[in-house]
């Protein structure tokens, strides 16, 4: 009976024995990963849906409370502050990050001596652990003894408290975010740049187009699918900023003085693991999920106005 069901299922992939054998192998090969994905991502995600409807401190049995956690969320000033901080960080870091990544990609797409070394250097932060990187950046931003303080010493800013002052803390966090994101976006842009046919540039040169005109009329439109992807991924990344804040404030303000550096992801962690409110933390996770989903859908709609897909037009 079970064998029959499997055969029935395999028939979906083709009716010859070969096609079915291939399908069987395919399934067998993706099974371990799929199971891993299911148990370590799928189940926790499902569980967080249920947890968000419960009052659970991690020790006592959970109690079903309906939408109470969500109701509380919308009246919680900490939540709105974290939401605001997250948006600020996004507005700081995404446009600057994307423009920088594009600039670096264009630069490193040319025939430069040591091009591969530079590409590697720019990509290194991506494969560096955010935690380790943030520790180093914490030293760089430390007043009096840090690198930045000493660079700014002639301006009398040696003792500027980057990491504790509520009005400054988001700057170091944004800097680390951009620095670490740059290499990844750069690689996407590089890949995008290499899909643009050289012939278009050659034709434009013959037509007498300036460097800027070529960039404006060829590179930007043909790169727009990549730019779109980079924007979507960067915005998702910005919504998930956590490690930087956690590390850079871990020895002083724990999320910024008065919550000034608390992002949604950090608030989620704090609610769950400091305050033991797992239901509330799960509610934050769900809201974060839907906000990211909303932003992504919004961008997908907006893309019709500015993203140019060559294949669709031809």
């Amino acid at each position, binding site marked *: 009976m079970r064998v029959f069901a499997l055969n029935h299922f395999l028939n979906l992939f083709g009716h010859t024995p070969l096609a079915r054998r291939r399908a069987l192998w395919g399934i067998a090969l993706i099974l371990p990963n799929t199971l891993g994905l299911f148990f370590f991502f799928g189940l926790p995600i499902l569980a967080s849906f249920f947890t968000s409807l419960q009052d659970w401190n991690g020790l*006592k049995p959970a109690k079903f409370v309906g939408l109470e956690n969500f109701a509380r969320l919308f009246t919680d000033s900490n939540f709105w502050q974290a939401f605001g901080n997250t948006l600020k960080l996004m507005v700081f870091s995404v446009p600057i990050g994307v423009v920088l990544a594009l600039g670096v990609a264009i630069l490193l797409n040319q025939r430069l001596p040591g091009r591969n070394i530079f590409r590697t250097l720019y990509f290194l932060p991506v494969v560096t652990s955010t935690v380790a990187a943030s520790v180093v950046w914490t030293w760089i931003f*430390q007043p009096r003894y840090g690198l930045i303080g000493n660079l700014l010493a002639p301006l009398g800013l040696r003792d500027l408290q980057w990491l504790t002052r509520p009005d400054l803390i988001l700057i170091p966090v944004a800097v680390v975010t951009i620095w670490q994101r740059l290499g990844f976006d750069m690689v996407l842009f590089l890949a995008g740049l290499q899909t643009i046919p050289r012939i278009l540039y050659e034709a434009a040169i013959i037509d007498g187009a300036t460097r800027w005109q070529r960039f404006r009329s060829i590179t930007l439109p043909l790169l727009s699918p990549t730019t779109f992807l980079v924007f979507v991924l960067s915005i998702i990344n910005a919504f998930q900023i956590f490690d930087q804040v956690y590390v850079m404030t871990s020895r002083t303000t724990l999320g910024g003085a008065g919550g000034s550096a608390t992002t949604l992801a950090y608030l989620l962690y704090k609610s769950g693991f400091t305050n033991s409110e797992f239901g509330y933390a799960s509610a934050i996770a769900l809201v974060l999920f839907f906000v990211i989903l909303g932003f992504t859908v919004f961008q997908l709609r907006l893309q019709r106005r500015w993203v140019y897909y060559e294949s669709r037009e031809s």
Partner: protein
Amino acid sequence: MYKKRHLILLVIAGLLFSTFTAAPSHAQDKPTIAAAKCAAPGTLTMWVWDEVWQKTIKKSVDAWVKEYCPGATVDVQQHPFDQYWDLAKTSAASGDLPDVFNMSQDRFLEYASNGALLDLQPYWDKAAIKTDVWGSGLVNPYRYGDKNDLYAGPVNWDTVALYYNKDLFDAAKVAYPTAAWTWDDFAKAAAALTDSAKDQFGALTYMEYQGGYANWIASNGVTPIVDAKHTQCTLTDPASLEALNYLKGLQDKGYMPKVSIVGGSSADDAFNFWSSGKVAMVSGGSWKLPDAVSKVKFNWDIVQLPRSPKTGKSHAILHAVGYVASAKTKNPDLAANLLQFLVSDEGQKYFADAGGVAPANPAPALQKEWADSFGNSGKNIQAFVDATKDSQGVTPFGEIWNTMNTDLVVNIFDLGMSVEDATKKACDAIVPFLNKH
């Protein structure tokens, strides 16, 4: 006459006899806390958070297996402190807490009130161990329930004293501090030891709870932050304000560096700053002794914290880590037996030998062994033992930890908020968590 003498002899004989029969329980070599054989061996899991302790505890556990419970196996696992509590919390939620694990005074109530811990009182009673053998500061925070049952066996004590850089004192021609120093003496020395041209500070003593400002509040006559029963925030008491304003005054005059210049608000951050030679006096824990003995390059020594002019006392904060057992352990008798060994004279010997943390077991031989374990350092290690005599147990608890350790310290000692505003803000954050345990 003869008869009377006879009677006296008889009485003496009787007295002698009763002394002899009672003798076994009063013999000189009777341990302060005795270990006992286990009823049946089994398998236990144990968690510790300290890497150094893991080795010490392992030795102690091996001795238990060898001498008292042949055939038992104990898996001693170490999880770094910053992960330990997340792990403990999730494990408690899923009912997977290890059979025996380390607990701290500030987190105890959270676990006990949620029924996650085994009540050890019946086992203490059965083993005829009187729980007041330990000082009140060591065990009182581990009592729970209507009858004040003791849920933990204390591992160690640690407390706070003043570490000072003798070289800086010599260079500034300032007399070394003594245990008789008052806050005024301290302030004068801090002023004389500050040299802003050399980027040198006189003192650094305002840091987080145990290593810092709370000692000054305690010395000034108030239980710092919250009272023992968790019913009120004491930060806004006049004596608290006075102590904090005294410390802030020293910083405002430039004798103490700001938090962000030190790089953090923890006692460790302060100690590292002191170790770098940039500050003359720092309040530091006894747990820093091994580091200080082995790593500090300049001449240094220790003295008790200065006395409040108001109370005439130095009243340092003392904390005792405990061993607790899980309420869900499959082997409660065995877990309790291991615990009994770990706190006994025999089990604690390994801690005394290892140095670093002072064994909780009050047997004088153990305390001396601990002090001697730092070798012939010539340092006034006795200052810590002296400080334990009149000390303050840990009263704050997990939920308010960050408020008092980071927010309050950063607000006052980095962002320059007034003591009155900062303490009011802290109390506002603390009050919602009171009266809950």
